[in-house]
C-alpha cells in the first residue's frame, strides 16, 4: 500500500476516526485504526463493538491496500506532523509515515483478526446537521443512566413521513421533540431505540455538516443498526432492543392553570434556592397571580425563599419538583420564556418554551416533569 495525502486532511480524519476507539480495548486489535487505500480514496475506520466510525477522504493512491495500525499512535503522530504532504506506505509488517524530513516506522496489527465492520443500512433521509444536534441534545438530557434498565438509556427515534420524533425518559421526566426532515421516499415509517450517549456524541460530531443522512432499516425486521453520515464521515450504532413506554397518552392536553416565567430569572432563582435543598429534597413552587414563590429546605435545616415575577392563568397552585430535573428542562427548552402547564399538584407538569411572553408556546419540544409529592 502506498498513498499521499495532505497533512491537515489526514490529521482531521484520523482524529475523528480515532475518537471512537475504546480507551480500554477488550482485544488488542480493537485499538487499531483500519486504513484502506483504493482508487484515489483513503478510508479510515475504527470500531468499539458498539459504534463504528468510518471517514473517507481524497488521497493520491499509488498502490491500493489495507493495513491496521495503532489508532492512538497515528493520531498523536498526524497531529504533530509539519504542514507538508504525508506519504504512508507499507514495508513488510511495518508502516512508514514520511512527512517532510520526518519519518516514522510503525508496527502493524493483524488485519485478519480485525472484526468485520457493520454494514451501513440504506439511507432513509436527511436533516440539517445543526438542527439535529440541537434536537438530540434537548431530548438526551432526559434519558436514564441506569444500565440495568437499558430501554430507558436510549432515545426513541420515530419516523413517520416527513416528521421525526425523538423521545427519552428516565421515569421522572419525559422529553419529546418533533422535527421535520427530508425522507428519501414517501410514507416512510420506522422506529429505533438509540443509546442516548452515543446519539448525543454522534450528532455533535456531525453538526458541522450541512446535512446529516440518517440510515435506518424500515419497520418490521430491522438490521439492528442505525447509521449517520455527513461530510464524508459515517458512523453506525447498535440499537437497543425493548419496549419503550408509550408516551403520547402521558402528555396531558387540558390544564387548570398555565404559568409563564422569564427563563433566565427562573433558572437563577431555582439554582439559588436549591443550594439548601439537600440530596433528593425538592424545591416548592407556589404560583399566584403575578408572582412565583420558590422555597426549599424545611424544619430545622437551612431554608431559602425567593420571589420571581410570573403570569398565571387559572387556579393558584403549589407544586414541588426535583431541582436538577427542573433545571435540565429549563436549559433544554432554550427559550426566553418558560411556560409551565398544570392539572393538579400531583400530576405531571408540562414545560415548554416561548420566544416572547405573548407568543404561542413552542409545540416542537415538550418536557414533562413529575412533581414530588409533599407530605402533609
Amino acid at each position, binding site marked *: 500500500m502506498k498513498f499521499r495525502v495532505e497533512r491537515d486532511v489526514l490529521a482531521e480524519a484520523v482524529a475523528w476516526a480515532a475518537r471512537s476507539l475504546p480507551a480500554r480495548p477488550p482485544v488488542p486489535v480493537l485499538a487499531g485504526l483500519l486504513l484502506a487505500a483504493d482508487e484515489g480514496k483513503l478510508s479510515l475506520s475504527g470500531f468499539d463493538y458498539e459504534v463504528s466510525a468510518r471517514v473517507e477522504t481524497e488521497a493520491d493512491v499509488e498502490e491500493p491496500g489495507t493495513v491496521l495500525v*495503532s489508532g*492512538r499512535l497515528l493520531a498523536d503522530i498526524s497531529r504533530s506532523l509539519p504542514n507538508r504532504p504525508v506519504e504512508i506506505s507499507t514495508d513488510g509488517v511495518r508502516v512508514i509515515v514520511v512527512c517532510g524530513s520526518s519519518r516514522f516506522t510503525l508496527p502493524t*496489527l493483524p488485519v485478519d*483478526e480485525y472484526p468485520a465492520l457493520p454494514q451501513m443500512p440504506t439511507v432513509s433521509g436527511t436533516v440539517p446537521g445543526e438542527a439535529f444536534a440541537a434536537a438530540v441534545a434537548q431530548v438526551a438530557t432526559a434519558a436514564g443512566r441506569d*444500565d*440495568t434498565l437499558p430501554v430507558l438509556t436510549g432515545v426513541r427515534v420515530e419516523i413517520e413521513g416527513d416528521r421525526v420524533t425523538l423521545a427519552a425518559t428516565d421515569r421522572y421526566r419525559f422529553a419529546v421533540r418533533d422535527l421535520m426532515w427530508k425522507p428519501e421516499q414517501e410514507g416512510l415509517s420506522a422506529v429505533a431505540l438509540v443509546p442516548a450517549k452515543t446519539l448525543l456524541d454522534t450528532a455533535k460530531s456531525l453538526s458541522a455538516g450541512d446535512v446529516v443522512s440518517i440510515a435506518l432499516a424500515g419497520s418490521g425486521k430491522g438490521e439492528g443498526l442505525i447509521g449517520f453520515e455527513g461530510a464524508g464521515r459515517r458512523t453506525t450504532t447498535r440499537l437497543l*432492543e425493548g419496549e419503550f413506554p408509550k408516551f403520547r397518552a402521558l402528555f396531558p392536553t387540558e390544564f387548570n392553570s398555565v404559568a409563564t416565567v422569564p427563563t433566565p430569572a427562573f433558572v437563577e432563582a431555582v439554582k439559588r434556592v436549591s443550594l439548601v435543598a439537600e440530596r433528593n429534597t425538592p424545591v416548592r413552587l407556589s404560583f399566584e397571580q403575578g408572582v412565583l414563590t420558590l422555597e426549599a429546605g424545611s424544619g430545622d435545616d437551612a431554608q431559602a425563599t425567593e420571589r420571581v415575577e410570573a403570569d398565571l392563568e387559572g387556579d393558584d397552585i403549589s407544586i414541588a419538583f426535583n431541582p436538577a430535573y427542573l433545571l435540565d428542562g429549563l436549559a433544554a427548552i432554550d427559550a426566553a420564556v418558560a411556560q409551565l402547564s398544570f392539572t393538579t399538584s400531583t400530576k405531571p407538569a408540562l414545560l415548554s418554551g416561548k420566544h416572547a411572553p405573548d407568543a404561542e408556546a413552542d409545540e416542537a419540544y415538550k418536557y414533562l416533569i413529575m412533581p414530588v409529592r409533599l407530605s402533609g
Partner: protein
Amino acid sequence: MSVWDDLVGQEQVVEQLVAAARSARVVLGESGRSGDSRNSGAEEQSGSSGMTHAWLFTGPPGSGMATAARAFAASLQCTSPDLELGGIPGCGFCEGCHTALIGSHADVESVRTDVLSIGVKETRELVRSASMSPAGGRWQVIILEDSDRLTEGAANVLLKAIEEPAPRTVWLLCAPSVEDALPTIRSRCRLLVLRTPPVAAVADVLVRRDGIEPEMAAFAARAAQGHIGRARRLALDAGARERRAEVLKLPLRVADLGACLAGAQSLVDAAAADAKQVAEEVDTRETEELRAALGAAAGVGGRMPRGTAGAMKELEDRQKRRATRTQRDSLDRALIDLSSFYRDVLAVQFGAAGELSNEEMRQAVERVAGESRPEATLRRIEAVLACRTALERNVAPLLAVEAMAVALRAG
C-alpha cells in the same frame, strides 16, 4: 478444521449444538429453502425449537466447557458458503468463525474472571449489552465462562436479562456442575452436560492436533485424568512433568514429621513455580500485544502514547490477580494428582482391574498399597480432599498442606 474439532469425546453435545446452530439459521431466515413462504413458516416453527436464548454448559474442569461455548458461538456466526449446500455450521475458516474463535468478533463477548468472583458492577454492564442488537445482524453471544463465580447479587442482576434478552441475544453460561448455578439461573437455561473425555480420545487429540508422540500422549492423557489443557501441558512441558513427579513422591516421604513438613513445603513451592512459569509465558505476550496495539515504541521501556497508561495499568493489575489465582489452581491441580495416586493405591489394594492413572509409578503404588489397609487409604484421600476445601476457604496454603501431610502420615 472445523470449530468442533477441539471438543474431545463430546459427540452427543456436538450433535445437539450443531442442530441448534442449524435451527438458529432457520430463525435468521437463512435456510436457503425459502422459496415457498407457507413452507418456510412451518419450518421456522419446527426448526427453531433446537435453538434457545440461554444455555448452561456443565462438565468437569478441563472437559472443554468454554471451548464448547466458543465453538457454538463461532457456529452461530459462521458465514461459510458451504452452509447453503448443507455443510455443518462452524467451518472454522470464514471470517465469522475465525474472529469468534480468537475473540475479536463484534458480537461474541466473552466474560471470564481472573479473580475469585464476578461482582454486581461487571454484570450491570452485561445487562446493558444484552439488550443491544447484534452489530453483524446475526446473533449476539455472551459467554460467561465462570458463571460459578458469580456472586449471588450479581446473579440476581442477570436474572431478568437471561430470562428475556433481546431477540437476538444468546447467553452461554459455563459452570462445573448444575449445583454451581443459582436455581433461578438454572431454570432459565437449557442444560448441556459434557462428560469427562475418555483417556483414549484425549491422547488422540494430542497426537492429531499437537503432533505429540503417541506414547507421551497416552501418558499425559492418563495422568491428566481427562483434563485436556493439563494433558497438553504435561505432554509438551518437561518441567511440568518433573513437578508432577515431585508431587507424587510425597506419599513415600511422609515417614516422620520433619519429612512431612519438608514435603509440604516442596509441594507449595512446586505449585508456585508452576504458576510463575504459566504467568510468564502469558503475561509477556499479552503485554507486548497490548503495547503494540496502543502504539508503544518497540522494545522494552519504549515511550507510550498519552492516555494509554490506564489500559496498561489495568492489564498489570489483572495479571497480578491472575497470578494469585493460577497459584491456587496449580496447588489444587497438585492435590488432584495426589488423590489420583491414592486412588491407584486403593485400586491395587482391592485388586481392581481398571487402568492405573499413574501406571509409570506402579512400583511406588504397590509399595504403599502393601504397607497400609484400604481404610487408611480412604482416610488419606479424605485428608487430601479436606485440604482442597480448606484452600477454597482461603486458609494459608502452606498451613493447609502441612496439615494434610501430617494427616497422610498418621493414616
